[in-house]
């Protein structure tokens, strides 16, 4: 396995959640994990973040080994430089938007945290809302705070767990455009979990199809849509077994 840069993940276990995963995501690349609900996408994300420990696994990110069950290496979640946007956003309800972002800046000197947090909030277009608590923000604004907080960690990998599932369609369209814009400023691997094929095709460089905890096929969106490796991939992508004819 090439471990010089980017993210490399191998996870294997037969239960309680079956996993047979082998994937990698390069720097500046966005990889979408696509699968139906309950296919194990979020578990893979949690294993990368250190929130779930598989029986056997290897997680290497930015050349740093985070998990190697054979050698007994398991870096704890708070020591992995991961930016994770939870499906529910998981904002700290007792803190303001600014407080949420400052909390992810503990690795920085105290004197510069607030200014940096304001800059991250400005980057996601939340100027003027720094003093609001999560309950006083709309779904889309909460999601932006969650992204700002994830970026504030200055992560070596950005993990997005169904980030658009809790907002209405117009907001979703807007946020997708913003994410595409944001990608120009971020040069780390981004893993996006989604069950929405169109979203994956629109946003990701490559798509990894997951079914029952197993990585079935990884490829560029057009390749996957035209030539699904087998009927299971076609079923997950909601395609005819022979794939979609080229446009």
């Amino acid at each position, binding site marked *: 396995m090439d471990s010089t840069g980017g993210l490399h993940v191998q996870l294997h276990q037969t239960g309680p959640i079956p996993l047979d995963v082998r994937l990698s995501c390069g720097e500046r690349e966005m990889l979408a994990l696509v699968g139906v609900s309950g296919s194990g996408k979020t578990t893979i994300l949690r294993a990368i973040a250190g929130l779930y420990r598989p029986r056997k696994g290897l997680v290497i990110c930015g050349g740093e080994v985070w998990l190697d069950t054979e050698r007994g290496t398991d870096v704890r979640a*708070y020591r992995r430089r991961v930016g994770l946007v939870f499906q*529910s956003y998981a904002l700290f309800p007792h803190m303001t938007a600014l407080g949420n972002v400052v909390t992810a800046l503990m690795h920085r000197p105290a004197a510069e945290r607030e200014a940096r947090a304001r800059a991250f909030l400005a980057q996601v277009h939340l100027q003027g809302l720094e003093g609001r608590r999560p309950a006083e923000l709309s779904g889309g604004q909460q999601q932006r705070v969650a992204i700002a907080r994830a970026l504030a960690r200055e992560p070596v990998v950005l993990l997005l767990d169904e980030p658009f599932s809790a907002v209405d369609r117009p907001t979703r369209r807007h946020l997708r455009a913003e994410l595409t814009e944001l990608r120009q400023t971020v040069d780390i691997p981004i893993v996006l979990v989604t069950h929405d094929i169109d979203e994956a095709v629109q946003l990701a460089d490559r798509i990894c199809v997951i079914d029952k905890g197993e990585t079935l096929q990884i490829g560029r969106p057009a390749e996957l849509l035209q030539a699904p490796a087998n009927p299971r991939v076609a079923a997950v992508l909601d395609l005819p077994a022979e794939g979609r004819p080229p446009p």
Partner: protein
Amino acid sequence: MDWPALALSLRLGAFTVLVLLPTGIVVARLLAYRQFRGKGYAEAFLALPLVLPPTVLGYYLLQAFGVASPLGQFWQAVFGHPLAFSFEGLLAASIIVNIPFAVQPMQRGFEAIPADIREAGACCGLSPWQVFWKIDLPLAWPGIVTGLVLAFAHTLGEFGVVLMVGGSIPGETRTIAISIYDRVQAFDDQAAGVMSALLLALALFALGITYALSRKVGRRHG
């Protein structure tokens, strides 16, 4: 009005709360976040003082603290006086009796924090200790305060266990609840009435605080 008894009760309540604040938080967090074999039995054991007759609990504590017991002998050897029928013995009994009153609301307080919020803390780079200070405590404090208020109010009103373990030694183990009983026995209805009214007011005040805090938790997570 038996002022020494009131002062003793307040001192007993304060010390009980002082001990149960850290120990209650440790036990409540353990029960809220960890899964282990026999957890149900551990919770049942800690809840026992809620359902056991105070005289039964008092009897066992008296046996455990008495001069014939290893603990009682150790205490006598080190401090030169028996543990039973002393303020220290009363305090130990009060702490044990109040464990469920303190721990259960604290446990509910910690359990009410969604798991992903604590995980988000770890992903922000917060160590477990920082998660405790920055996330657990600020979100669970209504449960923690409720536990302490209930334990304090219950200490003031506890009768059976206090009588069994402490007797009624003025200035040493005679609490306000025991004093009320003594005053009634002596046909001093006026003193008993004043002290009863005071305990009633304190109980109402304590319950008012706990219900207000419960609503606060409901609003935050609602």
